[in-house]
């Protein structure tokens, strides 16, 4: 957009200077497109149902009500209980923590082994694993229920963590493998010459260099696990049902009435945890990849 200007090629910083307005126009327009649904969600969440029924989705609430937010958090009925979505909050936390740490550790070891040690058949194994990323989870559910049931892990916290571990392994492995592939091989060779073993090199050399990619992986994994519904529903057992089950109970119904304002509030409330993590780790996220995750 700025190639016609004579200044363009003089400094990266100045290159787009004349086109800077264009850049801002594009970014602001995009931002408006991205924010429009959030605006509608927020506006809807503060309207009473009568106003929603009349139906202008773009209008601001005439009569602002906070009732939907209170209902969503602590009073909406989701069955015999009417406790809103908060009931599953700690369950979700209990699932997210191990389901983030373990897959990252395993993914890191896998990626390290594949990238540095290049075991025989490693590529075939990796290929098969990547195919796994394409199988819809629901298809794998039945056999996994059988397997977990037979080892007594079905419907338990360790069970759901194991399931998350299995389903996140392809992508986690991919992330770490690409990251480690970009680390200079000399470093690894030097460590081997010094007599380091598989885990010794991993712990002493590789792991300390992995902070950035770990942050990246953590963000993807936290979002994925936090928003997971179907796996938690089936595998976690009724004592450990995540927050999304409550969220779905609030939002989804076939023949019951729908409270759109409560639905919107509940959705926004549920997504606050991943949103906070994006916000806090935004810098890390970017620097993490910068340090070589996908640099090649």
């Amino acid at each position: 957009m700025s190639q016609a200007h004579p200044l363009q090629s003089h400094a990266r910083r100045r290159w787009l200077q004349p086109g800077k307005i264009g850049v801002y126009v594009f970014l602001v327009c995009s931002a408006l497109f991205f924010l429009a649904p959030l605006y509608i969600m927020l506006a809807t969440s503060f309207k009473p149902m009568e106003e929603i029924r009349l139906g202008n989705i773009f209008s601001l609430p005439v009569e602002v009500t906070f009732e939907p937010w209170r209902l969503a958090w602590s009073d909406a009925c989701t069955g015999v209980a009417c406790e809103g979505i908060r009931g599953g909050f700690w369950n979700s936390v209990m699932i997210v923590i191990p389901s983030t740490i373990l897959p990252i550790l395993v993914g890191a070891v896998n990626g390290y082994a594949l990238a540095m040690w290049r075991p025989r058949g490693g590529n075939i194994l990796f290929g098969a694993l990547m195919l796994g990323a394409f199988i819809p989870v629901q298809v794998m559910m039945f056999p996994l229920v059988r397997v977990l049931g037979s080892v007594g892990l079905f419907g338990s916290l360790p069970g759901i963590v194991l399931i998350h571990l299995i389903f996140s392994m392809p992508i986690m492995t991919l992330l770490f493998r690409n990251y480690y592939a970009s680390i200079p091989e000399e470093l690894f060779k030097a460590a081997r010459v010094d007599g380091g073993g598989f885990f010794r090199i991993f712990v002493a050399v590789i792991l300390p260099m992995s902070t950035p990619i770990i942050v990246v992986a953590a963000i993807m994994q936290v979002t994925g696990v936090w928003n997971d519904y179907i796996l938690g529903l089936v595998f976690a057992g009724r004592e450990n049902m995540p927050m999304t089950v409550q969220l779905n109970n609030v939002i989804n119904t076939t023949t019951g009435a729908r409270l759109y304002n409560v639905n919107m509030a509940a959705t926004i409330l549920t997504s606050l945890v991943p949103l906070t993590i994006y916000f806090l780790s935004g810098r890390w996220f970017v620097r993490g990849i910068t340090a070589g995750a996908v640099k090649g």
Partner: protein
Amino acid sequence: MAITVIVGYLGTAIWTLKVSVSSSRTFPVDDFVGLAQYVRLFGNDRWLLSLENLALYGVIFILATMIIGLLLAIFIDQKVAGEGVLRTVFLYPYAMSFVATGLVWQWVLNPGSGIQDAVRRMGFPDFTFDWIVNQDMVIYTIVIATVWQAAGLVMAMFLAGLRGIDDDIWKATRIDGIPAWRVYVSIVLPMLGPTIATVFVLLSTAVIKLFDSVVSMTQGGPGTASEVPTKFIMDHLFGRANIALASAASIVMLLTVIAIVAPILYARSRALKRAGSQ
């Protein structure tokens, strides 16, 4: 990892294959009915349409998400003010459950309540934007909503890739007086190769698993116009209690993925080997 691959993925695939040649309904049974389920599958209008939809959707979605994500990343990389805010704005849809955002998209796109209605009220009575109720256009509305959800993540990955490019390259091209767009096209893009590959794999898995957005926005409608394979599989797996047909459909999907992915992986591993032996 080997154990996961063997037990988790290969085991499931074999199990699914076995069920797909049985007459299982709610529960798996051990009989053998040959390819009857596959015959029924490929005689089913809805399944054929959902394959077509997925191919069309996949190409447009991946292209659009990559282009928009890349553009956002490049523009945000121009040292703009408020970068942190913009990044969060583009990324937030990734954290939201589609159960509710799908409904919002349905409202926005519906001619009676959404954009069409709003523009008409502003004094353009002939304005028409009714893709979501249109048999031929509805699949594009799924593209719009899913691009909205995924573009931010893609932007973040590309942005990171861009930041990782050595500053020296910019200095060198500056001295040579090469225009910015040419630097992006002929130097930066190739250097982003691995990022593009990672993003491509991520988006491809999202395409194959496309489900939530369709269910929450159109329920596969109007009619069967926006049906996708995963929804067909899920309907038969649960609601219609025909796990044999669902398994047959899954096997077809898996074979399709293998047919597309295997040559790419093979080519890549050969390229790697050659690079390694040099």
